[in-house]
């Protein structure tokens, strides 16, 4: 995972208590609730310049740091693909 991504994620996880974020880190159990997901989403958009597609906005995407990172990476790839296209 991109260190920028884990640094951005950490403040949303109030039960992380300084531990390292791994792909398996369970986001809801570490303190991410549905009320905060919108703020997290905006933070991702600002940092990586892409919005997550609407169909990725479900519990499965927000289950672990790894599942969320996979969605962010896919959104960036799709965005760069469309920007790079002639």
């Amino acid at each position: 995972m991109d260190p920028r991504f884990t640094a951005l994620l950490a403040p949303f996880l109030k039960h992380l208590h300084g531990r390292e974020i791994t792909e398996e880190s369970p986001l809801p159990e570490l303190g991410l609730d549905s009320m905060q997901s919108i703020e997290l989403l905006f933070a991702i958009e600002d940092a990586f310049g892409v919005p997550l597609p609407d169909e990725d906005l479900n519990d499965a995407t927000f289950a672990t740091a790894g599942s969320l990172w996979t969605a962010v990476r896919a959104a960036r790839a799709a965005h760069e693909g469309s920007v790079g296209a002639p």
Partner: protein
Amino acid sequence: MTVAPERTLPRTIQERAAEVAEVAAAHAERTDREASFPVETLAALRASGLLGLLVPVADGGLGGSTADLLRAALRIGRADVSAAMIFAMHCQQTAAVLAHAGPRLRAEVLPELAAGRLYLASVTTEAGSGGHLLSAESRLRTAEGDLVVDRFAPIVTGGAHADAFLISMRGPDDDAPGRLSLVYARRDQLEISGSGDWQPMGMRASHSVALRLAGTVPQDQVVGGHGGFSRIATGVFAPLAHLGWSACWLGAASGALSRVLRMLRDPAGRSRSALGSELLLTRLSTVRARLDTVHALLWRAERMVAEGVDLSTPPRQLLLNALKITAAEQCHAAVDELITAVGMRHGYLRDSPTRLERTLRDLRSAALNYSNDRLHLADGRLALLDPEVRLA
């Protein structure tokens, strides 16, 4: 001449619900006055087989669907919304056991449910959580391989009469308040103490008292595994709570409208001038439209849940929350408007056969029961997550 013996057909779910509703109606005035649990209605629920409504036929139950549950709640809600809530909330608990209990626990619980011997209550709110399900401070401990439960709960509907409880607590190794486990505990496994004080405005027969539960249960009474509660809450409790509560409230408001219409049409009390009143006709129209709106939303949401789709997406969460918010507001507004329509004697007096006074007090709880204010905050955020506005 011989007469063929009368064949006794198995009763339909709706016939069973009608029998329970009759008992509930007969005792509702007293249980409301005394703020006491409707023990006669629970006995009728046990005898009717409806406590095992959702249990598969193969396990001795009625094999009913969520739609059957909603129709039964609507029917019982017409007579007594407290009794309907007791039934609907029991069914939420059984749905969690059916979907998530391990084989040993299922084998113990399902026959008991089917036989009407098991009324299940839920202990999923905690002092300081504000009705929020997904946080709890109380923690399970392990002792000699078993789990030690010690939990205070500020409000347990039917807690003094339940045969067993589903209790949410932090697991023995869970250090995050967001990671909860759901534990099944029988009354004989627990020491139960409570204040017994219960003097609410309405829903008085729901007898929702504060309890302390303490005891020891085996590990296999954890439902859905340690940390499994949030999955059960999203997949079972939240959708069934919003559907079930809405059906109870719609039943209550439908019963109120029905009683008012029968009174207005009764030849003895009919006065041509009253039925010709444009104000009265407009009010009846508005009340009816409120109920049709909730009815349409209820069955749309039921279809969506029955399709088995992922309910965690913003459009689907918004629809389920909108059902609860709308049912709470519109059912209460409908009964309030009926009171205005029929006036002081039949709207405001306790002994009127319209029973609007009791129904209004009961339905006043709807917006507070898992607060509409909090749901609106969640819905505002969820709306921002769906800029395309994909209506579910």
